[in-house]
């Protein structure tokens, strides 16, 4: 039995080294992907977050027990200032034997300014969990379109604002184009987020984000003008 132990140790070490190498390669490929994309789109790229984006007041950046931002692209895309980046957070848990483990969640995000002062409002695809939460807390805001209510979950600090922001045109657009994205507006910011995607998929996400911003009803800018 003891004779096999060194062999097992070597096998495990090789596997660990293989995984580490694979991760290093994947990271290198992602960095190269972002650098190439940023250059193609005329954006600046930074591997780290030079803007302190975690201080942005969006709710997604308060989730989990720890979080980080990397691969930040910044600049003007289709005449709109944008910041696109990878975001992750983890939840820590401890099992009955006191062993700690972390479960990570990864997102691709686009942050844009908006010429309005928005109440915190999130628009995310409905899921089993959000339906359950709605049933228990009644926090989901309902709109005139039943199809929209079934597909999307909207919560807001101010329902009146939510009804201003999500008009019939916005409902239709979200049903047709919202897809796997979640949207959050707060203050003068719009955040668009989805499950992490490859760098080459970012342009489509940027287009979605800008189209979403284009759907914001004019009355929002009239009733909720940006402070200052």
């Amino acid at each position, binding site marked *: 039995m003891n004779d096999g132990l060194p062999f097992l140790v070597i096998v495990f070490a090789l596997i660990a080294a293989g995984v580490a190498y694979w991760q290093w390669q994947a990271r290198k490929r992602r960095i190269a992907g972002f650098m190439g994309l940023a250059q193609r789109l005329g954006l600046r790229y930074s591997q780290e977050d030079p803007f*302190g984006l975690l201080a942005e007041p969006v709710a997604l950046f308060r989730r989990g027990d720890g979080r980080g931002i990397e691969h930040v692209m910044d600049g003007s895309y289709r005449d709109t200032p944008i910041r696109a980046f990878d975001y992750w957070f983890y939840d820590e848990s401890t099992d009955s034997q006191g062993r700690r483990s972390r479960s990570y969640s990864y997102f691709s995000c686009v942050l844009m300014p908006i010429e309005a002062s928005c109440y915190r409002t999130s628009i*995310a695809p409905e899921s089993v969990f959000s339906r359950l939460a709605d049933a228990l807390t009644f926090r989901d805001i309902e709109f005139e379109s039943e199809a929209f209510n079934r597909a999307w979950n909207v919560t807001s600090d101010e329902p009146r604002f939510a009804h201003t922001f999500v008009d019939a045109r916005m409902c239709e657009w979200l049903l047709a184009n919202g897809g796997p994205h979640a949207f959050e507006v707060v203050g003068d910011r719009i955040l668009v987020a989805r499950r992490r995607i490859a760098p080459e998929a970012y342009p489509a996400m940027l287009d979605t984000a800008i189209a979403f911003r*284009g759907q914001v009803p004019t009355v929002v800018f009239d009733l909720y003008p940006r402070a200052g």
Partner: protein
Amino acid sequence: MEVVLIVIVILAVVVVGGGIVSYNRFVTQRNLIRDAWANIDTELRRRYDLIPNLVETVRGYASHEREVLENVTRARAMATSATGSPAEQAAAEGPLVAALRQLFAVVENYPDLKANQNFLALQTELTNTEDRLQTARRFYNANVRDYNRRVQAFPSNVVANVFNFHEEQFFEVDEALRGDAGVPRVDFTGATPGVSFGGPAGTAPGGEPPTTPSGASVPPATPSDAPPMPGDEGPPPPPPPART
């Protein structure tokens, strides 16, 4: 015997407590509906106030379109005199909106009028009023929908019956002023050219924290505020660099 008594007392407390909570919620909802209706009323009045100026401006260029102008004036008078329920008000709004749509269709034949600054200002104001009206209508109807659902559903319908909370009427206007022949749509795509990220992260321009329209600071997000995000249950991770 004592146990039964305790159970009865607990049940009574739960029922009475639930009833009080339900009653208070009905009161809150009813007040919210009244408040929402007041907003609709404000926007309707604003629209009524704009119409005489609009009619006079159009008359200056198209005085022989007498019938169209009289229709608008008549419909406005009918709408302003309707002070009844939301359904009655909505019924009175229909002819007014139709008359206004007809007026805007006629205006298409008068290029000088379309270029008139006064007319353009009125048209813009009418557009904004229409947008605000639609927003107020959606908010009102959403509150009515929630309230009516509680009036109908068990067990809140028991409280509603005891305390005379009745179903409220929706405010539905068949015709929208906006549209092909009405007030022109404003395409807002890319209409905020000057917008930028402004001050430091999380602050509005001028270094102030993001504020609500009432001037109150937007409170920091809490984990419980976070929306359900697609991808929460992602694949097993390559460990990211440890940062918090």
